[in-house]
């Protein structure tokens, strides 16, 4: 139990997927303009990564490994992720109109979010068992959501700040992200 907790804490704070592994930078810059959107995107990402990781985990150990075709991993995983996102979009659209309104626009963006493919592959390369896979695939996107939310709060203030003309928009956002990474590097010793 303690190991699982350490794994989760490590994934959220120490090896944060955005600030120390540099994954999911595109949505990090694109969807962080308001904190409301940040929460919506974060929840959608947690949901998709959790589902996609479980499916790819089962697929790898039940199909690819027994057949000895592990080299097909990349192709099958990305197809599963793309199909899964599409499926969820259709499902939510049919059964919950309000949820679709809230998450709808973010879902198609998630296919190209590298965090999804990274977590699916990471579960396999690290040799995680089922419990560790479940914890990892909730904690990593939770870290993403945390940073996305914090960053969106900073960015709302940044809009009204007086920045040099050349740095307006994305460059100053990246400087801010760098300073956040510096703050997060202080977590390095806790696990």
């Amino acid at each position, binding site marked *: 139990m303690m190991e699982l907790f350490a794994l989760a804490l490590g994934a959220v704070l120490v090896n944060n997927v955005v*600030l*120390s*592994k*540099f*994954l*999911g*930078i*595109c949505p990090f*810059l694109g969807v962080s303009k308001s904190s409301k959107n940040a929460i919506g995107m974060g929840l959608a990402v947690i949901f998709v990564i959790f589902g996609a990781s479980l499916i790819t985990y089962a697929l790898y150990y039940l199909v690819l490994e027994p057949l000895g075709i592990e*080299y*097909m991993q*990349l*192709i099958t995983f*990305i*197809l599963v992720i*793309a*199909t899964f996102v599409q499926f969820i979009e259709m499902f939510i659209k049919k059964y919950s109109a309000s949820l679709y309104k809230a998450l709808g626009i973010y879902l198609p963006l998630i296919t*190209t*979010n*590298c965090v999804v*493919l*990274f977590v699916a*592959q*990471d579960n396999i*390369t690290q040799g995680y068992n089922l419990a560790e896979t479940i914890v990892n695939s909730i904690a990593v996107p939770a870290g993403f959501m945390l940073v996305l939310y914090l960053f969106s709060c900073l960015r709302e203030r940044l809009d009204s700040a007086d920045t*040099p003309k*050349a*740095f307006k928009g*994305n*460059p*100053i956002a*990246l*400087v801010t*992200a*760098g*300073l956040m*990474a*510096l703050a997060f*590097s202080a977590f390095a010793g806790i696990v």
Partner: protein
Amino acid sequence: MWQNFKNGFIKENPVFGLYLGMCSSLAISTSLNNAIGMGACVTLVLIASNVIVSAIRKITPDEIRIPVYIVVIASLVTIVEMVVHAFMPDLYTSLGVFLGLIVVNCIILGRAEAFASKNGVVSSAIDGLGMGLGYTFALLLISVVREFLTTAGLSFVNPFDPTQVIFSFTIEALEPYTISLFSASVGAFLTFACFAALFAVLRERSNKKEAK
């Protein structure tokens, strides 16, 4: 055609101009070797995927074009990953997970959708080469700054044979003043932000010139 090729460098540089492929360019730009290796892999995949997508553009049904592109790209990346694993083990370890993640590099899918699906095979290949070199150019800029600031020197070794050093130098007078922060993620973000601002200025200047 030449204009297409040239655009990839400054005006429409995929990394600093369009903010595509940022994850990999931030993560692996710690050394010159990684930058050149990653740049070469992405360029190869980009040219090949542009050629294939353009060659099959007339028989690809419009509704399922994105999954088709993804399968083409994933197959090419698997091939490149295997080749690098077999012949350049050092590069394979230092690029790590980012080699497989070329699949979700937005530059490749972006070019397939925006250019190769509408243009002929030859011009798609040239577009792929231009965009790939633009990406490599961006990686080189970031990695030169970061490697120099962390080690006070630059070095490049043969990726096929790590014992063979192609060039390497250090400025000893600067060695006590190296900033190790620049090898960490903070340095990546700061270097990237400064280059992005520089490119924004360059772009604005060239737009003004054209307006005149």
